[in-house]
């Protein structure tokens, strides 16, 4: 689907959270590293007390749990959390190093520091903060990022504490590890100035690059997180949480636009059919009897557990539930999200997707009859569960269906790995912010600004120079790389493989090899950071030849384990190469004699290279071939 983003008034804002690499946490002296898996830990059990007005901040399911008094278990790994994380000691003064790093990044984003920093308490009630709030402060305002499609303003830059790490969750309980709680985060929020999916990627990339160029932020999984705010004219401003991969951003934007456009089309279609919100019934019907002899495995298993089948008749809705709103997701999927979130049910089954799940054509007809509906015009929704859950689920589904007549509901959504999104919760009102009275405000005076100036952050333009002069890349390769989000990957790999593998090999593989393999249809996404690191390390240590890289990547992409792939393309020893060269010379001895050994180098090289298939460095093969042919020439031949 081609979309005219300007025409539909797309506006995107970014909120980027990045962990800072300070020595200590934001409000205590604990380290900012996560605890090893086998750390000794204590457990502390707590409950949170919530006023009703603050429950709106939660996922509906979590809100339901919390209102029932959910047990929160905190794991306190020795050496990685103290009384501060446990909410048993007041926070210490703000960690100066973190503040300085954050201000240096703010400066590189052209923002102005505030005169005095005040920490606030933002109420967070899912238990991920032991105190029940997150401590956060605006440290800088203003700022902008330049981009080819226009300048994107930065609204606020905040310094805040990361939340505890969720370990497990179940009915009535949740377990968190406290090692992550209190690690400093910088939060950069742009204005909704972004007008295209590609611009969203470029701006996120540029902000990410500036942060990493500071050399003072954490790298690796979970250390950076992007949230997006996306709206189109006539649609709604939707918050999308947890986009953890940069490359996903354009997809998320595109799919969200598609979703909003589809929802608007559905609205128009409903009006065209002359339907009104009042046509959505308020009550649902028990239709268990129609499916009591069903061969459907889902139905049978559920009925055996004592569940019932409930149906919501939807007169005039035929086909609407099947409308695709984003790839692989139909309007029915959207309704299903609501049923899951609010009712805790497994999902819904709707008539537009039936017969399916083992429910037969005749059973569908029976349900239509039972509900007094016309199979050619009407639709229905089934929920299989106990009554209490079905009631909550249908209530949410009915409200959502009524909103279909208005358009796009204001939601907070979560990103899926494929770039589509799912419903999480309604958007909360303005967060309640209380002053953090335990922390002294910090005046941004000359002594802090002097420390800030000591952190030199190269401009993205200067990185080109570093790549060419520092890493020895060609101008061409370097300029390709800096325009590509792969640069992060490249810099990570170069940093980790310093002195082992040359940056040129890494750069050309990422920029050229990976891309051409992708064009050939190789599923290069399967080759993750770890695999790449191992491949480059193997090249650097001579385990495989650099010529073998494409073959190794292909093998891994088709499911071979990294170790196996590296083994099967292991470099040949000099002796092995010599043996192959000897064999090639012997079997082509007549031709070589005819041409003369000196003129047969390329002939022999070609044949040998096709035999070693990347398992030997071409330069080495060439030396051996020349040596052997020279010997042959001296001998004058057998």
């Amino acid at each position, binding site marked *: 689907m081609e979309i005219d983003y300007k025409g539909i008034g797309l506006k995107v804002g970014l909120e980027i959270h990045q962990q800072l690499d300070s020595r200590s946490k934001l409000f205590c002296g604990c380290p900012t590293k996560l605890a090893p898996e086998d750390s000794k830990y204590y457990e502390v059990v707590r409950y949170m007390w919530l006023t009703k007005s603050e429950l709106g901040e939660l996922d509906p399911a979590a809100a339901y749990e919390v209102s029932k008094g959910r047990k929160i278990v905190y794991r306190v790994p020795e050496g990685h959390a103290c009384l501060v994380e446990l909410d048993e000691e007041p926070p210490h003064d703000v960690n100066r190093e973190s503040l300085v790093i954050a201000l240096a990044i703010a400066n590189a984003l052209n923002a102005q520091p505030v005169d005095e920093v005040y920490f606030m308490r933002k109420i967070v009630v899912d238990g991920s903060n032991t105190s*029940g709030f997150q401590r956060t402060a605006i440290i800088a305002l203003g700022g902008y990022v330049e981009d080819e499609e226009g300048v994107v303003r930065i609204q606020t830059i905040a310094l805040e504490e990361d939340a505890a790490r969720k370990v497990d969750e179940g009915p009535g309980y949740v377990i968190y590890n406290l090692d992550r709680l209190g690690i400093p985060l910088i939060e950069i929020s742009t204005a909704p100035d972004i007008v295209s999916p590609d611009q969203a990627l470029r701006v996120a990339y540029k902000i990410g690059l500036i942060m990493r160029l500071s050399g003072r932020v954490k790298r690796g999984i979970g250390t950076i997180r992007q949230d997006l705010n996306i709206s189109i004219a006539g649609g709604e401003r939707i918050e999308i949480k947890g986009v953890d991969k940069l490359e996903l951003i354009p997809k998320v934007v595109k799919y969200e636009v598609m979703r909003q456009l589809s929802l608007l089309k559905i609205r128009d279609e409903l009006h065209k059919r002359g339907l009104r919100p009042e046509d959505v019934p308020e009550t649902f019907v028990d239709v268990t009897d129609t499916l009591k002899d069903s061969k459907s495995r889902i139905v049978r298993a559920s009925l055996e557990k004592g569940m019932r089948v409930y149906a919501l008749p939807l007169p005039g809705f035929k086909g609407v539930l099947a409308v695709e709103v984003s790839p692989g997701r139909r309007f029915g999927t959207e309704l299903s999200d609501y049923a899951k979130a609010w009712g805790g049910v497994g999902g819904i089954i709707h008539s537009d997707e039936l017969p399916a799940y083992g429910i037969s054509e005749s059973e569908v007809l029976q349900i239509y009859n039972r509900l007094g509906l016309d199979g050619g015009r009407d639709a229905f929704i089934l929920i299989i569960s106990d009554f209490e859950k079905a009631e909550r689920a249908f209530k949410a589904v009915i409200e959502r269906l009524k909103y279909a007549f208005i358009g796009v509901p204001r939601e907070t959504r979560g990103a899926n790995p494929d770039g589509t999104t799912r419903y999480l919760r309604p958007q909360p009102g303005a967060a309640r912010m209380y002053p953090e009275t335990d922390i002294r405000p910090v005046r941004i005076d000359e002594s802090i600004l002097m420390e800030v100036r000591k952190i030199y952050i190269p401009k993205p333009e200067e990185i080109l120079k570093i790549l060419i002069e520092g890493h020895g890349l060609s101008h061409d390769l370097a300029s390709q790389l800096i325009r590509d989000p792969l640069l992060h990957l490249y810099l990570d790999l170069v940093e980790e493989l310093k002195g082992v593998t040359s940056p040129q090999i890494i750069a050309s593989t990422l920029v050229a090899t990976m891309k051409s393999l992708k064009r050939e249809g190789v599923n290069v996404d399967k080759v993750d950071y770890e695999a790449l690191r191992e491949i480059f390390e193997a090249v650097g240590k001579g385990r495989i030849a650099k010529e073998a890289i494409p073959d190794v990547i292909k093998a891994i992409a088709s499911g071979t384990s990294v170790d196996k792939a590296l083994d099967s393309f292991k470099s040949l020893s000099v002796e092995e190469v010599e043996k192959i060269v000897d064999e090639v010379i012997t079997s082509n001895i007549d031709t070589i004699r005819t041409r003369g050994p000196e003129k047969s180098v390329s002939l022999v090289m070609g044949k040998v290279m096709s035999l070693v298939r990347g398992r030997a460095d071409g330069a080495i093969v060439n030396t051996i071939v020349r040596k052997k042919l020279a010997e042959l020439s001296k001998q004058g031949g057998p």
Partner: protein
Amino acid sequence: MVHVKPGDLVRVVTKSGIILEGVVLPSTEFTSRGFIVLKLSNGYNIGVSLDDAKVDVLVENYLKLAPSEGPQGTTVIRGDGNMRIAFVSTGGTIVSKVEYETGAVKPALSAGDLIEFVPELKEIAAELVVSDFMRKLSENMTPKDWCEISGEVGKYLASGADGVIVAHGTDTMAYTAAALAFSLRGLGNPVIMVGAQRSSDRPSTDALYNLRACPLIIREAPFAEVVVAMHGSSDDQYVLVHRGVRVRKMHSSRRDAFQSINDLPLAKVYIQERKFKLVNRNYIPRSRNVDLVVMNRFSDKVSLIKFYPGMDCEIIDYLVDRGYRGIIVEGTGLGHIRDECIESVRRATELGVIVAMSTQTVFGRVDLNVYTTGRKLLKAGVVPLDDMLAEVAFVKLSWLLGNYPDEEPSEIASKLVTNLVNEIGGTQSFELFPRWYHGD
């Protein structure tokens, strides 16, 4: 420069050219000179220097800043139970709430909040009297306040309350608990002191748990003592009920700061399970057949001093010369101060000042028979306080001097070491000394 005041909505153009709009908040102890604190529309506060900034007042008094108010008196609430309960609020963290708009701390928990916090109160009480009596941080309490609180609590007990809950700041809660324990003579029902280490505006507050234990104690407890109800561990699992004359705040910030010293707590209350479990069988039983007498006078001429190496002995002389009538000394180990000071002690006792010895080791008894210094102190007239906590002895001596003004020092001294409410003379069993963490 435009004059701005807290509550005004202003627009500020800072010296770096940023335009800000927000409400001016009242300054705090931390606000730098020449700075204002602005609350922005996104809820964040920031500090803005007025140097070289351009300020326009958009709306005067945009936010109403109510002046802090005094205690509001009593509210009576009817419940579904059959007990009569009084809740007396004196101030402290347990009733403190921060207003998110203004950042002002309000030291009052309304009766409505209390009922929402503690649904058990309505279930158990037929009549609940909520008295917004005092709004004091506990470090500001004086013996005069003990007198008033005791009078207020006594009033409800005398009119038939089955139990009284006293909300109090934690810093000096143990002192007030001791003061109530001595002044409420002939107590027939429990009086529960309760506090919080995390204020009740936090989702993680411990106030809720501690408060929810109170109605259960009033319903279940077999004892008629003044007790302190606070978290038993860092978990929200059970609340410990400590005897008011045997409890001490042992940590500056933890939820489980309060611990019984030289004694076992009286009971544990499991909140989730709504279970009351008696753990100490040595208590003063509840009774309908006693007559409450409120003896709530306290002398303010008692001092509590901690001996330290090289202490200037004139400190004792000074107190005597200033008209102090009692000195509780926290001595070292078994109850010692340096030799040189013994002369000042002798002078004090000869002038009729009661000098009594406790120990700064907190745990264990004093014994002045073991070393020469101890024996010399005894000879100089020092009263050894056995296993009584120094703070409790301080309160008890204040109470004795306040209520028995005409008695001879020797009679007061004798009363000081005579057990009244299980404050002195327990059995020191092995397990009463806590096991600390030794890295294993």
